[in-house]
């Protein structure tokens, strides 16, 4: 949307210059005011259905307006003129540009939206968009049809005329529809491929795999014995054979995770902070931990996960590894998603499965998860030093220095090991040979703009 942007020297003020030829699908020009309107709409406490509003809290005055009764006029976003948008941030935020790609930051057409709350509920004339494709029809839970937008500023680049999206719940069914030629694309990020099909898809070379910015982990409840002891946590984290899980169960060439931040953001994390499946060291940690706790032998512990085929398989494998490597009885407990979140949130677990997929492409998105107890941090672990480093990173304007600070924080985190990372996610998908230039980003986004079908 923006043709160019300027950043002030203190990194606090961003000025975006929107392109002149950007128009909405009803012909209106896309203006800076549309952005201002959309962002302030999200931050208005009267609009409750905005559970992602916190993504905007890096903007000056945003959190105050949304949560503390601050004035919405104080929010640091302003349309200077028709095509110039000025954004003032609360702190220099090196990843702000990454954030603006997040959908909470998208503009809406003020003229259409104002006073028409239901403009986007169904495909009607008020469904005004400004992307490379227009929505043609939307049958709820069934099918979406996209058509090329002839008025798009870069319409010459767009080659696809129509995109049909089918909503199929069952992974096997969509795979079969793909095999039958009814679909040109199946799998991540819009769907996933059935576990049992992966080996044969790999064998015939049709499977595509790319890294994804996400981490699959087991959270320890650091308030419950025995996981209040750091050596016990380490013992459990080290006694997992991640490579084995990836080779035999998930099979999507995920990367074994011995760190918090995925390798697609920090390449050096392929090494990690410890060795995978390090049984010797795990047993040493176990012995030290037991001594510190004054225990002869570990009591039976429970491992919780929300119900899903892959989670169940991984949990059973880990259960067996802990039983064999540490000699501990592990009982599994699976729960339906809503009940599971409730148990995790109320600390009613010992070890529980969790995952995080990045909202934007920056390490801070992972590190700040564990800044304080509550929210997405179920471990009950917090550290003053860790939190201090995060705050320090927010004002650091030099990229290298900032990374150094964040890596220091990650090192503290891994030293205390409130979670046992298992693997960094990957995207796995199938596409027909004639589908060209359709790539999955590490954030799990598909861009259809440049896609074309070869004859």
């Amino acid at each position, binding site marked *: 949307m923006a043709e160019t942007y300027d950043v002030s020297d203190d990194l606090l003020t961003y000025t975006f210059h929107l392109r002149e030829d950007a128009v909405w699908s009803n012909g209106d020009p896309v203006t800076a005011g549309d952005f201002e309107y959309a962002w302030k709409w999200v931050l208005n406490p009267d609009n409750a259905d905005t559970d992602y509003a916190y993504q905007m809290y890096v903007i000056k005055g945003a959190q105050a307006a949304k949560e503390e009764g601050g004035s919405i006029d104080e929010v640091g976003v302003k349309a200077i003129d028709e095509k110039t948008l000025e954004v003032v941030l609360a702190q220099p935020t090196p990843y702000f540009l990454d954030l603006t790609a997040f959908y909470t930051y998208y503009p809406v057409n003020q003229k259409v939206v104002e006073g028409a709350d239901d403009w986007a509920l169904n495909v009607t004339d008020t469904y005004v968009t400004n992307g490379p494709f227009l929505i043609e029809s939307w049958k709820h839970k069934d099918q979406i049809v996209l058509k090329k937008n002839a008025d798009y500023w870069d319409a010459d680049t767009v080659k696809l005329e129509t995109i049909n999206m089918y909503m199929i719940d069952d992974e096997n069914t969509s795979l079969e529809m793909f095999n039958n030629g009814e679909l040109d694309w199946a799998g991540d990020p819009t769907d996933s491929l059935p576990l049992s*099909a992966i080996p044969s898809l790999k064998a015939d070379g049709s499977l595509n795999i790319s890294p994804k910015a996400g981490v699959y982990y087991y959270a320890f409840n650091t308030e419950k014995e025995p996981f209040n002891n750091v050596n016990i946590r380490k013992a459990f984290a080290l006694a997992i054979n991640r490579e084995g899980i990836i*080779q035999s169960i998930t099979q999507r060439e995920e990367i074994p995770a011995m760190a918090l931040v995925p390798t697609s953001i920090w390449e050096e994390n392929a090494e990690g902070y410890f060795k995978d499946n390090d049984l010797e060291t795990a047993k040493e940690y176990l012995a030290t931990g037991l001594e510190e706790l004054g225990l002869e032998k570990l009591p039976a512990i429970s491992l919780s996960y929300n119900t899903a085929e892959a989670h169940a398989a991984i949990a059973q494998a880990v259960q067996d590894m802990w039983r064999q490597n540490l000699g501990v009885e592990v009982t599994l407990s699976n729960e339906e998603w809503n009940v599971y979140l409730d148990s995790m949130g109320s600390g009613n677990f010992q070890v529980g499965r969790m995952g995080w997929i990045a909202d934007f492409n920056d390490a801070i998105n992972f590190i700040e998860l564990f800044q304080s107890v509550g929210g997405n941090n179920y471990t009950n672990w917090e550290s003053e030093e860790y939190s201090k480093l995060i705050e320090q990173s927010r004002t650091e304007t030099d990229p290298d220095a900032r990374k150094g600070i964040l890596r220091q924080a990650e090192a503290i985190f891994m030293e205390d090991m409130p979670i046992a990372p298992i693997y960094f996610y990957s995207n796995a998908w199938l596409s027909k040979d004639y589908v060209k230039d359709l790539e999955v980003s590490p954030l799990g986004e598909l861009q259809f703009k440049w896609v074309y079908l070869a004859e």
Partner: protein
Amino acid sequence: MEHRQLKEIDFEPLHLKQSEAEKIVGESTSYWKDAWRRFRKNKLALFGIIIILLLAVLAIMGGPISGHNYYENQLLEANQPPSGTHWFGTDNLGRDVFARTWYGAQISLFIGLMAALIDLIIGVIWGAVAGFFGGKVDEILMRIADVLYGVPYLLVVILLLVVLPQNLWTLIIAMTITGWINMARIVRGQVMQLRSEEFIMASRSLGASNTRILRKHLIPNSLGPILVTLTLTIPSAIFTESFLSFLGIGVQAPLASWGTMSSDALPALQYYPNQLFFPAVFICLTMLAFNVIGDGMRDALDPNER
């Protein structure tokens, strides 16, 4: 020769209730004997009993004789076809399917039989009472059943899990909480139809009590539909258990039942059909056996065929 004088004291009055005097004696003892005699002659039904016994023996012995357990992972030997070491092959974590099948049999057979038994007791009593007395009693009993049937079942089970501990009994409660309703409806319909038959009227005019009519006439004459419903309860319990496992109720992994084994193996149907084949075949075999036994019992107990 002395004539023995018979005095009044030598005689004892025969204590006989009016109702018993008019009873057609001998019926009740020979009914069961007779039924058993006819059941024994039914080769198919005996065959069914042999299959059930065999499955029961395997359920107990199968695990130990396989030389494997149900939980040990061999990730490198995952998804193997049947072989000399793994008679039924291995699953996605390299566990022995033969051993898992028989540990699963214990659970599935237990769940199926318990659920069927409880449904039978509650359903028959509930339905018979409603159908026999009719009127207000019928309304109250059947409306309670309707309300239970109308409330979202999943919510009931989720709440049960919050209140009760996570074990097999909770699972059985979850399955029987609405499971008996079908049985009750069918029995009620039968009883309503039968109660106007001539032989019931005859029995009533001979002074038989309500419970006696229910016990001796109405329920035996409804046995056919009762047995059929009962044999359906078993597989539906086995599969309800696997459907409910996503709530975390019932057996916890790595222990598996036939139901969870089949539903876990279903996505892999095209690639590793053996993982679905074995539990499914044993479910079918069990059902076949129970059905031929049920048919044999029906034929043997049919009061009209005597």
